């Protein structure tokens, strides 16, 4: 029985010692080294657990020993159990950050002047260190993930809007704009030449107009002079007389033409009669035909008729040879 009690006691005590000593050891407590507690204030501590390591220049010099929100709720007070044989920087501050991507957080004593960009919490008590907590890596990755999602959305929309057809249209638009630009340039060049020519023409026309104006001025002066000298009145009077003469001449010509027409009608009727007589003569009818039975008379008569016909035709064609008109 006595031996049993000893063995049971050994097992129980050994297990308790292992559990307690192991826990203290894994939490970083060392019996051989003294510690002093330093406090720091943070606006937030992220996922820093109680007992996390505290490092100085990468060397573990202590452990987090207590995390509590301030009574007014504006800050978090963190106790740091540090080894007494470590000298902290004069402007020491505490930086809380993830030590890896696997959720283990730690605190590090840093020099505040070496980290001017960090917005350390300002404690009112000078004995308390200022602290700053670097945003959680998961928060940063979540933000990056959100940005990536937005970029993906934009890319999808661009992909939907910018199809092959759109690209082809854009290419055509660019080509068209190029062609239009070339044409505008050519048109501008051509217009510049035309404008230059137009300006030259205008210049020439202006000179001519000036000359015409001068001539017109002179002409008007001459006209004014003539008007003032009565020459025009004389010309107008002569013109009137000439017009009256022309009117009389026209009347005479109209009358002559009427008489000529009557003569021509008479000549026609005569010729008709001569033709009738000729047909009677050819047929041997009538007195004249019998008289002309003699061939001599007939030949002479026929000759006379031929000459008469020629005369009439010449008269038709050249009436002026036979009719003399005189105006003055």
């Amino acid at each position: 029985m006595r031996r049993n009690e000893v063995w049971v006691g050994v097992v129980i005590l050994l297990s308790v010692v292992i559990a307690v000593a192991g826990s203290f050891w894994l939490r970083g407590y060392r019996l051989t080294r003294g510690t002093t507690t330093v406090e720091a204030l943070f606006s937030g501590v992220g996922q820093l657990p109680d007992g996390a390591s505290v490092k100085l220049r990468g060397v573990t010099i202590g452990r987090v020993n207590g995390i509590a929100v301030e009574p007014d709720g504006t800050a978090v007070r963190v106790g740091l159990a540090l080894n007494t044989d470590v000298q902290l920087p004069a402007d020491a501050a505490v930086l809380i950050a993830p030590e890896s991507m696997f959720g283990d957080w730690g605190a590090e004593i840093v020099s505040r002047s070496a980290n001017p960009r960090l917005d350390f919490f300002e404690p009112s008590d000078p004995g308390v260190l200022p602290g700053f907590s670097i945003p959680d890596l998961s928060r940063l990755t979540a933000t990056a993930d959100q940005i990536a999602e937005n970029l993906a959305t934009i890319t999808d929309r661009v992909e939907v809007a910018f199809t092959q057809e759109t690209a082809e249209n854009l290419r055509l638009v660019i080509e068209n704009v190029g062609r239009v630009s070339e044409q505008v340039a050519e048109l501008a060049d051509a217009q510049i030449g035309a404008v230059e020519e137009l300006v030259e023409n205008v210049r020439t026309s202006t000179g001519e107009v000036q000359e015409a104006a001068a001539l017109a001025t002179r002409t008007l002066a001459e006209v004014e002079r003539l008007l003032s000298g009565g020459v025009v009145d004389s010309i107008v009077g002569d013109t009137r007389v000439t017009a009256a003469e022309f009117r009389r001449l026209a009347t005479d010509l109209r009358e002559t033409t009427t008489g000529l027409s009557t003569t021509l009608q008479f000549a026609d009727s005569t010729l008709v009669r001569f033709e009738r007589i000729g047909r009677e003569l050819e047929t041997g009818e009538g007195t004249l035909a019998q008289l002309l039975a003699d061939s001599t008379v007939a030949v002479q008569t026929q000759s006379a008729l031929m000459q008469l016909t020629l005369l009439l035709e010449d008269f038709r064609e050249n009436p002026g040879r036979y009719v003399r008109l005189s105006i003055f």
Partner: protein
Amino acid sequence: MAGKTLDFVGATGRAALRFAATVGEWGVLMQDTIRGLRAVRIWGKLVFEQMMRIGVASVPIALFIAAFTGIVLALQASYTFTGAVPVYLVGSLVGKTMIIELGPVLTGLALAGRVGASIAAELGTMRVTEQIDALETMAYDPAAYLVLPRVLAGAVMFPAVTLLASALGIVAGWLTAIQLLDMSTPEFVRGLETFFVPFDVVFSVIKSFSFGLAVTSLGCFFGFRTRGGAAGVGRAATSAVVASSMVILVFDAFWAAVLL
């Protein structure tokens, strides 16, 4: 068809009632056991003997299981943690897993087979040979005399054995890491420290305490209700091991859900 359905429903009902009756009988036995706490003179001198049999005698098998569990954990962790995962997490995995899960559960299951079956067989034999009846005849409280020392011994020794087993498992994992893997002791220790919190040890003690209570009380319960001679003793031992193992796993999930 309707008859078969009724038979199935009836069988289910009978099983439920039988289970409820069994739980009730276990409750009555525990009530008697708690009542027997007053009889310190009866159980006080028996506790250390039971601690020796239940706890100290179980240390070798518990340490053996834990040592090889730690070795396998370290090897499998190094096999799994490749690429971007830092190697020091091998220490984290070995420590965390041994302390809060594999140490208590594997020790509990091992002791359920060893201790639970032993208690059920011992008490079952006493039942079928009417030794328990004789104790009652002599005005001895069987609960205080037989059950309470074993339950107390299990409640105390299970956590102790579990802590030793967990520690040895971590040591085995550490030795494996520095001997078989390309790791250093500081790396392994860093992994151990990184995710360790003292509550892990408390959690392990609470779990193993409940496992000790379950294994010993169920061993006593199935031994006390043994019927039918030697065959009944065998059935009692089997039932005790099966029920203890199931209760251990149920408690494991329960404590994880409640305490973590």
